[in-house]
């Protein structure tokens, strides 16, 4: 029986091959057939989740809420030293130096990643901005947000910090972050669905020992991860409670 595995679509495209390498390693490690299915957008992936097509997922914090609370997924692990933080950036020639200088009608360029969008909208609150007095253009990729800023087609852009940091030096030189979130407790999580719940301990121990294995360490490097660390139910529940406080 083949199980479907997917990852949150907000990953850096440079790491696609890393996830395929991970999937190959992972199938051998837990002795199960696993198919890696990548979705182009958060909405496409969310439909697959709603249709119960996914049994294993590296989920963004927003989707983890639905998966754990409504779909019975179990938290297994997260990447060590990686938290989900967001950046709001402007064109480097923009007169805007901080959030509170932004005004009604601000043009936002954003992907459909719900956690990044939520964190960034929260960071706009001190300027009295919300979805009703801003204009948002939705893009499929972070590089397109950078382009919107470079062409002055948007006043501000919403980025996952990790993705922003991995933009080319040339692009970053033409942009300027005005605020970075410092939340520290929101992470992507690797979750297993009810049909694979019986393999949770095997999956977790394989992941936790990955960094000690030479092949595993190479796979981690291709994902830009140091190592996996265990996530227990209460840690995930706490993160989900926190996400809940941020969702209105």
């Amino acid at each position, binding site marked *: 029986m083949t199980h479907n595995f997917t990852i949150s679509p907000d990953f850096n495209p440079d790491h696609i091959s890393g996830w395929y390498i991970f999937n190959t390693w992972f199938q051998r490690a837990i002795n199960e057939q696993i198919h890696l299915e990548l979705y182009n957008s958060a909405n496409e992936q969310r439909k697959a989740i709603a249709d119960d097509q996914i049994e294993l997922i590296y989920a963004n914090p927003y989707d983890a809420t639905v998966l754990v609370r409504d779909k019975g997924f179990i938290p297994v692990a997260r990447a060590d030293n990686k938290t989900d933080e967001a950046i709001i950036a402007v064109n480097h020639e923009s007169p805007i130096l*901080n*959030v*509170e200088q932004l005004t009604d009608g601000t043009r936002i360029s954003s992907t459909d990643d719900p956690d990044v969008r939520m964190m960034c909208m*929260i*960071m706009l*609150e*001190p*300027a*009295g901005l919300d979805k009703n007095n801003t204009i948002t253009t939705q893009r499929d990729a972070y590089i397109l947000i950078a382009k919107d800023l470079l062409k002055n087609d948007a006043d501000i852009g919403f980025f996952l910090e990790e993705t922003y940091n991995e933009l080319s030096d040339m692009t970053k030189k033409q942009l300027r972050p005005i*605020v*970075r*979130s*410092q*939340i*520290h*407790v929101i992470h992507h999580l690797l979750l297993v669905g009810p049909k694979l719940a019986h393999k949770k301990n095997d999956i977790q121990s394989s992941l936790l020992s990955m960094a000690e294995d030479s092949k595993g360490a190479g796979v981690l490097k291709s994902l830009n991860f140091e190592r996996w660390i265990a996530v227990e139910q209460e840690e995930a*529940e*706490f993160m989900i*409670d*926190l996400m*809940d*406080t*941020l969702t*209105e």
Partner: protein
Amino acid sequence: MKDMTPDDISGEYREHMFSYHDGTQRKVLFTNTETQLPEGRLIVSRTDLDGIITDVNHSFVEMSAYHKDELIGQPHYILRHPDMPAAAFGDLWGTVQQRNKWYGYVKNLRKDGGFYWVYATVIANIRNGDITGFTSVRRRASRTKISEAETLYQTL
């Protein structure tokens, strides 16, 4: 809970004697010095069912001006500022105990007598159908909303 002492206070201060809902009394000292929550930060805390602090994050510690070990085990009202109406907290507890989310603008008292405004959200932690505690997340608020809250709270 200990009274606040002048040794901890920076600048001129006023005094207020609180009588909390659990019968505790405490003298607090407060100044007009405001500290702003830096952009991008969230203040996070958890309490047990009685409102006793069980966990705080770094931003909580930094903004409160207490040490973490002075906070854990204390009632959350250690941060209550005299300018906050009791009615706001009554509404908070009533809301979260019914498993609903509470939102509001809150002026918190620091250990040094200063204050900071936040937009707070509090929810019940529900595990296996039971409330096991509460999580509070506070973020930077807009000056306009703070002014509105100040005006409203003076009438309560």
